[in-house]
């Protein structure tokens, strides 16, 4: 198996699909000649031509809307938002046209929207957002969020093969920081959770960039056996895996990077409080970004994003409950 960065794994999945399936088409701003703001599609325009790696006008609603149109006549469009934050400009097409199409008309909309998301590098209020909860709340959209290179590739393949609209949350902070072994060729990672590290005293539930934070924060926590559950998929949410971890560990900390209120973590907490209540041996603790725009200046940004210390503290406190 090759060792790749998270970013290379994403590129590799896209390249493999472009080679394998003539229906696959990439659409986005500056993804062609320039290779994308993060260079995910570097060199693609040369290999696949400007029609299949399409530099679009600066128009997110059009990118999603045209992808929907292409999808229903047989293409497999993959849209890149230059930053996840810009999905606000294509939100209507995503939630109202793509998300509600199959239920209403039995017409599948096989599109993937790639959303470079998350903070940690002074991107400020408009280049650091984690909008996944917006899609989770909108029926008909799948949402996945890989934390490792292997899953980045496998989930992207699965997303492209899926007959439904899929939001692929790729965390910018992982792009070049995360490296790992990645199987060759096309393979699918299922839309289910994965136990990143088994444990028995407490489970930290996380996804995306927060999985590493959870692992590192709890690596050595006064000898406690801490499980880390990597959700990988937010829609569908692997409720069985979540409840299973809770049943085994009895204590839960949920970490996500999005703004706290109505976030993915809120849904996981609500699920456990309802259906895992009897297994609980302490409050369900959440660590998330408070309800503020992500500030630009490093001391401010550090103060709001969930970091090692906050996770560690939350776990310690709960363990001693």
């Amino acid at each position, binding site marked *: 198996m090759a060792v790749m960065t998270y970013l290379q794994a994403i590129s590799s999945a896209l390249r493999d699909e472009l080679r394998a399936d003539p229906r696959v088409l990439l659409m986005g701003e500056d993804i062609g000649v320039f290779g994308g703001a993060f260079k995910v599609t570097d060199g693609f325009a040369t290999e696949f031509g400007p029609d299949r790696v399409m530099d679009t006008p600066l128009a997110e609603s059009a990118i999603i*809307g045209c992808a*929907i149109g292409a999808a229903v006549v*047989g293409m497999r469009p993959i849209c890149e938002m230059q930053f996840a934050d810009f999905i606000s400009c294509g939100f209507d097409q995503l939630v109202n046209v793509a998300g509600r199409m199959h239920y209403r008309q039995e017409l599948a909309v096989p599109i993937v929207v790639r959303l470079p998301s998350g903070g940690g590098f002074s991107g400020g209020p408009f280049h650091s957002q984690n909008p996944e909860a917006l899609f989770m709340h909108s029926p008909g959209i799948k949402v996945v969020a890989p934390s490792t290179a292997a899953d980045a590739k496998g989930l992207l393949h699965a997303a492209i093969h899926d007959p439904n609209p899929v939001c692929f949350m790729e965390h910018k902070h992982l792009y070049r920081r995360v490296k790992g072994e990645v199987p060759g060729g096309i393979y699918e990672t299922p839309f289910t959770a994965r136990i990143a590290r088994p444990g028995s005293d407490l489970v930290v539930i996380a996804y995306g960039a927060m999985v590493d934070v959870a692992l590192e924060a709890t690596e050595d926590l006064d000898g406690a056996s801490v499980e880390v559950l990597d959700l990988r998929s937010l829609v569908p949410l692997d409720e069985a895996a979540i409840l299973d971890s809770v049943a085994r560990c009895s204590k839960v900390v949920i970490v996500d990077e999005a703004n706290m209120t109505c976030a993915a973590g809120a849904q996981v907490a609500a699920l456990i409080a309802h259906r895992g209540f009897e297994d609980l041996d302490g409050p369900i603790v959440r660590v998330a970004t408070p309800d503020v725009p992500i500030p630009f200046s490093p001391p401010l940004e550090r103060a709001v994003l969930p970091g090692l210390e906050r996770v560690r503290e939350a776990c310690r406190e709960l363990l001693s409950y």
Partner: protein
Amino acid sequence: MATETARVHADGAGSGHLQPEDRVWLLREMLLMRGIEERAMSLYRQGRIPGSFYDGYGQEAVSAGAAFAMAPQDRLCILHRDLAAHLIRGVTPARILSQYMGRAAGVTRGRDGNVHFGDRALGCVGMVSMLPDMMLVATGMAMAFRLRGERRCALTWFGDGSTSRGDFHEAMNWAGVQRLPVVFVLENNQYAYSTPIDKQFAVDPVQRAAAYGFVGVTVDGNDVEAVFEATREARERAISGGGPTLIEAVTMRMHGHAAHDDMKYVPKEQVQEWRRRDPVERQERRLRDLGIDVDALREQVTAEIDAATEEALAGPMPAAEDALEGVFCTGEAEPLGDGLAPWSGFRREQGVS
């Protein structure tokens, strides 16, 4: 490539590309549309149609004329006053009435409301309420056709009011930059709900086409053959690489925005003036001149609607358990299928007569 706005068939001479059978077909579909919508309005008043009800009375020529120019392999996004387009593509009156009544046999099986439907097997995508979102969907279809080198086009309708929204612009601009085989039919019926066009735009939006680099055409929206002809030309242009066309069909919304709307805000004279230009009567006159028995046709249509109403009323409502099914597609993603295309010109193209 900015071209001038042109006018076709303002003289109402009719299209030279239509056989008598075509002209009858067009009238038939307009009569069906009008009849189904009238029937639906009375079903609505009887409480048999839930929610609200919208119709296209007085605008029948726009959807009939444009849809008639579309080939089986073309794709359509049909708006809320365009019932004739569904009929032309092959959706039966019984399925439409079932749809309005929220029955299981409706096109969306009760999932969506009256005009929000499209039969995917017939190459149509049902609209969402958010106007004019479907312009982008049609643009995307056309993009796929161009990428694959196919001689097909996409067509969508939209109202004067929805030209104010951003998606109008994004679609027009994208289609212009990529010179896509798409036909945009602007149904200018003078009002957006209660809002007259002078509060929607300062300059007739057909003028915008040139600023996007393609052809804009104004057509008498109450002359079904003129609409057909303009669309036929636009389709020819589209499939032969000439890019998009914006067709403005000038017409009038003769009923309220929806069933609850008494249209008090519309000057009476405006309605009276347009009543004289009724598109159905106009086509009837043409056919009578050709010696066709229009009254027999009317009777046929009424009988068909009667039967359809009975069939629809006899059908069951959807089962409650069904409500949770189908949010996601669990099988293969099946693309849109081909629709009917009754225009004789298509049969001639294929050597069938």
